[in-house]
């Protein structure tokens, strides 16, 4: 599978003039506006932004679940109109089929493609082996820990050999230690398969540690505020997160996000009738102290 991808790099995502709004009784509300991004073949790109900025909405549009109001999404030159196995997706909520065993979950995409049973069983076993899950192939998802479930989710999305992998805060529900391990596993798989990845998260460390490039989104309606290349060498080790280079990138991204989070929270606090807290001033003075 990887041999094919090396000879012809695939998975080029190109999003232009993207906007998405939805209708309410008060008129149309913009969730995402004026967004351009691109992901080169084999590149790992993250989108970070404050909660509710529309980054998940954007990813769902790239997956084909939502139609852009304006603009276009193209993968390898073809316009995205509906979900397909070419764009594998991993959801924040563990989305394994509870009625299928781990192996049957991984086999699902291959079954949909009409691959014969014995062949897809073998393929699923191989993939589970790569993720260190071969011992659990006959387990039902309910019996697995959160980290294992998400590993199966990633393996399942990769089983059909998609051009791009979309991940929507996949490690958001995991504890800190498990999250770090999962990041390593994801990096390993990505490097092995040479696939393009678009990763949505609100965790700045995670975005820097994993990505070649990070897009920072504004508060709602979301648009791209900045594009930050991550020149850290690969393979990356956890110790790198203490390096001055990493911390400098982190500080830069932090201040970008903080501005947007405060904007988002400011609106929230107003609505809650808590303007008296003067949170904006606090945020800045705290930042100065740090």
């Amino acid at each position, binding site marked *: 599978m990887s041999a094919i991808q090396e000879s012809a790099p695939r998975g080029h995502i190109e999003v232009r003039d993207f906007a998405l709004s939805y209708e309410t009784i008060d008129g149309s509300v913009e969730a995402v506006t004026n967004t351009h991004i691109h992901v080169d073949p084999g590149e790992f790109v993250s989108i970070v932004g404050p909660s*509710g900025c529309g980054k998940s909405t954007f990813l769902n549009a790239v997956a084909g679940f939502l139609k852009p109001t304006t603009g276009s999404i193209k993968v390898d030159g073809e316009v995205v109109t509906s*979900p397909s196995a070419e764009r594998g*997706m991993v959801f924040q*909520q563990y989305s394994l089929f509870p009625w299928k065993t781990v192996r049957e979950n991984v086999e699902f*995409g291959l079954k949909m493609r009409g691959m014969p049973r014995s062949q897809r069983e073998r393929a699923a076993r191989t993939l589970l082996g790569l993720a260190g899950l071969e011992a659990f192939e006959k387990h039902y998802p309910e019996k697995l820990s*959160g980290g294992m479930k998400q590993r199966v989710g990633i393996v399942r999305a990769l089983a059909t050999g998609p051009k791009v992998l979309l991940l929507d805060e996949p490690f*958001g529900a*995991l504890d800190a230690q498990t999250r770090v391990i999962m990041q390593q596993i994801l990096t390993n798989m990505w490097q092995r398969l040479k696939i393009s990845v678009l990763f949505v998260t609100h965790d700045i460390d995670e975005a820097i540690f994993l990505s070649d490039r990070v897009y920072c989104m504004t508060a709602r309606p979301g648009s791209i505020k900045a594009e930050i290349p991550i020149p850290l060498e690969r393979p990356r080790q956890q110790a790198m997160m203490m390096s001055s280079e990493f911390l400098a990138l982190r500080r830069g991204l932090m201040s970008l996000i903080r501005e947007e989070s405060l904007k*988002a929270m400011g609106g929230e606090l107003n609505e809650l009738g808590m303007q008296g807290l003067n949170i904006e001033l606090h945020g800045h003075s705290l930042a100065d102290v740090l």
Partner: protein
Amino acid sequence: MSSSAILRHQEDTVPAAAAVAEPAPALAPPAKSPSFGTFALRWYRLNRDRLRATAIAVLSLAAFLIVWHLLTTYRVVFFVRFTNVPSPLAVYASFTKAIHDPRFLMHVILSCRRIFIGFSLAAIVGVPLGLIMGRFRLVHEVVFPVAEVLRPIPAIAWVPMAIMLWPTNEQSIVFITFLGSFFPILINTLHGMSLVDPVLVRAAQCLGAGERAIFREVYFPASLPHIFTGLTIGMGVAWVSLIAAEMISGQYGIGYFTWEAYSLVQYPDIALGMIAIGVLGLGSSLLIRGAGHLVMPWRST
């Protein structure tokens, strides 16, 4: 919009705490084979609660029989009159007589056959109809209002109409049984369809599943737990409806047997008929539960 952002943040943190508390998957038991004594002791420790429940259940049933025996032998009259109520021993005597009587067995077999046909038809019609209604809005919009109007009518109220509708008595009784179980099966199937997690549907779409595959691989298995709830409730209502129909319009059947016993002043047979109905009802629910375990192996722990 803003409050949803707060909620979302909470959602993010709560499962993280849960994930930490999750135990590691069960390890294989130690290889050394224990002696019989330790094995028995372990078995006892693991099953202590179940043993206790069984022991109490036996005692409680025994107490019930003793109270029944005392109330009937002393012919207690205290608001309720136990004067003519048969004693447990009299019922046992008529039971030993009945199991050798081909007519009693025929009553039982006929009732079971009616349940089997009526209930099976209800499942064969109700489950697919519920699935289709859950998936296609137009079908739902057309069928649901009619179903909602007919649903509150108890199956027993259909007895006169059923007799007019169907040429034979047997068919009208089966029809009543069908009606009784049909609506719980339909409504629960529909409920199951409405609760299917949309993320699972999206996950299937991302893996290349088309409309039919999503129906077969996601909607149907996801609804199975509710379908089986509907089947269990439907089976209970099927018995209620059957017994009422047999008492009113029947010839034969365990409901008719019970009613006939009253007319013929065979008091022990009244209790025998009641107990037979209870046992048959319990047995059929157990059958459905067993089928549920077979069909949904992921739910049995």
